[in-house]
C-alpha cells in the first residue's frame, strides 16, 4: 500500500525535505538544514511541524457522553472547562497503554488527538467502549500543524489575530479568512507553542505565511530530539501496550478524583501500582561518556546484572550531551544511581537523572 501524503507534501518538497515512511505516511525526517540546526532553531526561534498524520477524532455530545467517556479515560471530565485540554491515555484492562492522547472539551463534544500509528485501532476501541452510541468522526479533511518555540506566539499572532491570549493546554476558535480554525496552546517539544487544526485546502497558504513571518519547517528527526530533551514519551518506544502509566512515571496525568471513583479500564492495576509501587519504572539517563545509548540498549547495575533497557536515546543538541530514557528495576530508580549501558559490546558508566533534560517553558496560568 502506498504511503499517504499530507496536504503539505508539495511544500515539504519545496523546502528540501528528505522523506521517510512513518505510520503509513510519507513524512519529512529533515530539511536541508539538518536535525541539529532545526532543533536549535526551534529552541531559539520557531519551528513548524506537520503533524497531520496524527488522528483528529471528534465525538459529538449527546446524553451521558461525559459519564461514558469517564468509563474510558482516567481524567475528570465532569469538571473540565470548555476549551480546556488534558493529557490522558487509552488503556486496556491491565492498564497497558493503547495510546497516549490529548482530549479537549469543545463546543458540541470532545476533540481527541491520537498518535498516527494508533488512530484507527483507537477509533475501534473507543467506539466499542461507547457501545457505538455516539457520532464519531476521524477527520481526514483537516490538517494539523504545530508551531513551537519562543517566537511562536509572535509569529502566530502576526498570521492570525487572537491566539496569544491562550494559556497552556487551552484552545479556541479563531477567524481565519472565511472560516474558523481551532487552535490550542500546546505541543510536544518543551517549548511554548500552538497546534492548529485547519482545512487541507487552506493549510499550505497558512504555513507559507508562518514561514514568511519567520518560522521554519522542522522534520520528525528534530521533533524526536526536542521531545526527548523535554522528557516526553514517544508512543511505541517509551510507552506501549505492555507499560502502564504508573510504570511510565506518568501518574500525574491520572486524576486523583478518578483514582477514587474508578470505572475506567485498568483502574485496579493503576491503584495497586500507586499503592505498592511498580517492579520497573521509566527514568532519565545520562551517559558519562560521549556515547549514544539507543533503544534496546541493556542497562546493568554495578554487579553486572541486567536491570533494564533503554527506550529512547539520542544526542541532545541543546543540552550538548547524550541523553536517554529507559525502564529500570524500581530499586535502581533513584537520582544519581550509577548504572552501566552496554553499547557495541562495551559497558559505559551512566547515571539515573531527573527529567526533563531541558527545562520546559510553557505559558501557564488558568484562563
Amino acid at each position, binding site marked *: 500500500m502506498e504511503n499517504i501524503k499530507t496536504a503539505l507534501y508539495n511544500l515539504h518538497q519545496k523546502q528540501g525535505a528528505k522523506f521517510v515512511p512513518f505510520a503509513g505516511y510519507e513524512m519529512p*525526517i*529533515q530539511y536541508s538544514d*539538518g*536535525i*541539529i*540546526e532545526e532543533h536549535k532553531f526551534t529552541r531559539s526561534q520557531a519551528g513548524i511541524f506537520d503533524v497531520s498524520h496524527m488522528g483528529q477524532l471528534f465525538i459529538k455530545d449527546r446524553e451521558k457522553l461525559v459519564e461514558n467517556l469517564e468509563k474510558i479515560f482516567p481524567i475528570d471530565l465532569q469538571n473540565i472547562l470548555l476549551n480546556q485540554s488534558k493529557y490522558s491515555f487509552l488503556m486496556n484492562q491491565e492498564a497497558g497503554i493503547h495510546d497516549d492522547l490529548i482530549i479537549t472539551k469543545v463546543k458540541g463534544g470532545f476533540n481527541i488527538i491520537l498518535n498516527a500509528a494508533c488512530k484507527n485501532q483507537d477509533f475501534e476501541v473507543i467506539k466499542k467502549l461507547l457501545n457505538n452510541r455516539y457520532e464519531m468522526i476521524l477527520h481526514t479533511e483537516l490538517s494539523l500543524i504545530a508551531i513551537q518555540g519562543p517566537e511562536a506566539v509572535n509569529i502566530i499572532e502576526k498570521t492570525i489575530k487572537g491566539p496569544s491570549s491562550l494559556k497552556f493546554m487551552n484552545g479556541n476558535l479563531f477567524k481565519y479568512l472565511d472560516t474558523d480554525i481551532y487552535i490550542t496552546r500546546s505541543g510536544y517539544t518543551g517549548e511554548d507553542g500552538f497546534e492548529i487544526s485547519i482545512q487541507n485546502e487552506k493549510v499550505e497558504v497558512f504555513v507559507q505565511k508562518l514561514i514568511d513571518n519567520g518560522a521554519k519547517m522542522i522534520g520528525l*528527526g528534530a521533533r524526536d*530530539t526536542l521531545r526527548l530533551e523535554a522528557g516526553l514519551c514517544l508512543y511505541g518506544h517509551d510507552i506501549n501496550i505492555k507499560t502502564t502509566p504508573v510504570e511510565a512515571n506518568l501518574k500525574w496525568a491520572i486524576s486523583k478524583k478518578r483514582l477514587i471513583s474508578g470505572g475506567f479500564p485498568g483502574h485496579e492495576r493503576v491503584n495497586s501500582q500507586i499503592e505498592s509501587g511498580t517492579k520497573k519504572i521509566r527514568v532519565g539517563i545520562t551517559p558519562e561518556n*560521549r*556515547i*549514544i545509548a*539507543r533503544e534496546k540498549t541493556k542497562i546493568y547495575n554495578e554487579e553486572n546484572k541486567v536491570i533494564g533497557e533503554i527506550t529512547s536515546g*539520542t*544526542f541532545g*543538541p541543546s543540552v550538548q550531551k*547524550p541523553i536517554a530514557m529507559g525502564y529500570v528495576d524500581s530499586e535502581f530508580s533513584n537520582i544519581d544511581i550509577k548504572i552501566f549501558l552496554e553499547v*557495541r559490546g562495551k559497558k559505559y558508566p551512566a547515571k539515573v537523572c531527573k527529567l526533563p533534560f531541558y527545562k520546559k517553558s510553557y505559558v501557564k496560568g488558568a484562563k
Partner: protein
Amino acid sequence: MSEVKFSKEHEWIKMDGDTATIGITKHATEMLGDIVFVELPKKGSSVVKDGNAGVVESTKAASDIYTPVSGEIIENNQSIVDDPSMINADPENKAWFFKLKTKDKSEMDSLMNKEEYDKFAKESGN
C-alpha cells in the same frame, strides 16, 4: 599528487608511499545526517581490509566504519573526536579518520576511482 580511491562502504582512501589516509565521503555524510560522535581505531592496532575500524553516530543512527585496506594504524584524527561536526563540514579533507601503514598495496586495485564512485553513489541511492 596520488589518486584518491573509494570503497563501496563510502570511504575514501589516499595513498602517499606506504601510508594511506582514510575518511568517509561527502555522500556518506549526507546519508548519515549530523554526526555527533565518532570512535576511531587505536594507534598501533591492526585492521584488516573490509574489517571494522570505528563507528560514527549521527542524530539518526550508528554506523560502522570499515577500512578499505589492511594495515597498522599510525595516527587517528583526534580533532574529529573532539568536534564531530567537522565531519559534516569537511569530510574529504580536514576530517580524515585515520592513517595506516599498508601491508598490501594490491588491495587498492579493487577500489573505485572518483568517476566510478560517483556513479555508484548515485545509483545505489543509499
